[in-house]
């Protein structure tokens, strides 16, 4: 059985691990038309594909998480990163983050929160909930470049981990993985082992559990 086949069989639809094309598809969520324009340009100039939506509700709709279609149409989406404003009417960025981390299909997609307010408890709350990073507005090119590098590096790490493990059974891999079990946060409590492939991405989980232990 080829390496590729093993990987693709066990990964949820959100993670196509052929990291040959580094072009990320980013879903940007912001209620401000000015900020949407700016973040879109920042991402495009950083060689990302961008889809912008103006609310958390629309983001869920785009992902197919709004209950209407369920997880259908997923295969075409392949969102690699979600960047969202924190303060939005209706669903806040934090609410959106929670919904994404509660989804067995989308929880592995990194979520970055943006806010114009440097409120430490807010930042901690988002990181605890599983946000990859927190950007202070106004967002600059250097911020986007840093985020992109982080995401690309994480995906490459996940790739490497899997190519090493393809020789062992996946069950053994879960036991052998070095990362400690994630602390009880809402994202990990919902990751019951029906979705065992989550454990195949120790690098992103490890970072989150390390972060959580610092908070």
């Amino acid at each position, binding site marked *: 059985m080829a390496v590729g086949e093993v990987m693709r069989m066990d990964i949820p639809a959100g993670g196509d691990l052929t990291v040959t094309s580094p072009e990320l598809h980013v879903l940007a969520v912001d209620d401000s038309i000015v900020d949407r*324009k700016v973040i879109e340009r920042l991402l495009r100039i950083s060689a990302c594909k961008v889809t912008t939506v103006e609310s958390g509700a629309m983001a869920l709709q785009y992902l197919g998480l709004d209950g209407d279609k369920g997880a259908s149409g997923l295969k075409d989406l392949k969102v690699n990163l979600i960047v969202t404003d924190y303060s939005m009417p209706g669903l806040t960025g934090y609410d959106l983050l929670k919904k994404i981390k509660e989804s067995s299909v989308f929880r592995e997609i990194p979520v970055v929160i943006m806010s*114009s307010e440097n409120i430490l408890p807010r930042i901690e709350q988002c990181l605890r909930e599983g946000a990859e990073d927190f950007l202070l*507005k106004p967002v600059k090119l250097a911020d986007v470049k840093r985020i992109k590098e982080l995401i690309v590096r994480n995906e490459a790490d996940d790739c490497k981990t899997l190519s090493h493990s393809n020789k062992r059974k996946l069950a053994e891999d879960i036991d052998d993985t070095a990362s400690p079990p994630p602390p009880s946060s809402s994202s990990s409590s919902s990751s019951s082992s029906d979705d065992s492939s989550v454990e195949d991405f120790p690098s992103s989980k490890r970072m989150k559990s390390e972060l959580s232990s610092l908070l």
Partner: protein
Amino acid sequence: MDALVAQLQMQYRNYTASLYQQGFLDDQFTELKKLQDDASPDFVAEVLSLFFEDCVKLIGNMARALDQTGTVDFSQVGASVHQLKGSSSSVGAKRVKGLCVTFKEYCEANNYEGCVRCLQQIDIEYKALKTKLQDMFNLEKQIVQAGGKVPQVDN
């Protein structure tokens, strides 16, 4: 023609530098200019255009919220101020942003006169910025039409 280009470029440099010096623009405007290139030559003008439309909309909201004959809902005013503060921050409109900070404080203090004063000042300020930037963009156009390149001016 070279002399004309050089003269226009100098005019442009001085004018743009003065906008930073006088506090109309800040660092973030410089960041926006980094995002402009031959593929997106009008990016800055487009963003600023959206910003000015936002100003009109939000100032209208604030005016309506303050114009209540009953009790003013200061949180409603504050919500629009917060939005304007965000977008002015994103485009580098320094003076407008500064006024929004003050305005927000008046909202939180339920200070009606303070709010009305801020609203008037913000209206004047965004219009002044709009005019200044129009002059700046015109200079850019003249430079390009004269066959020159628009110089890079950071604060």
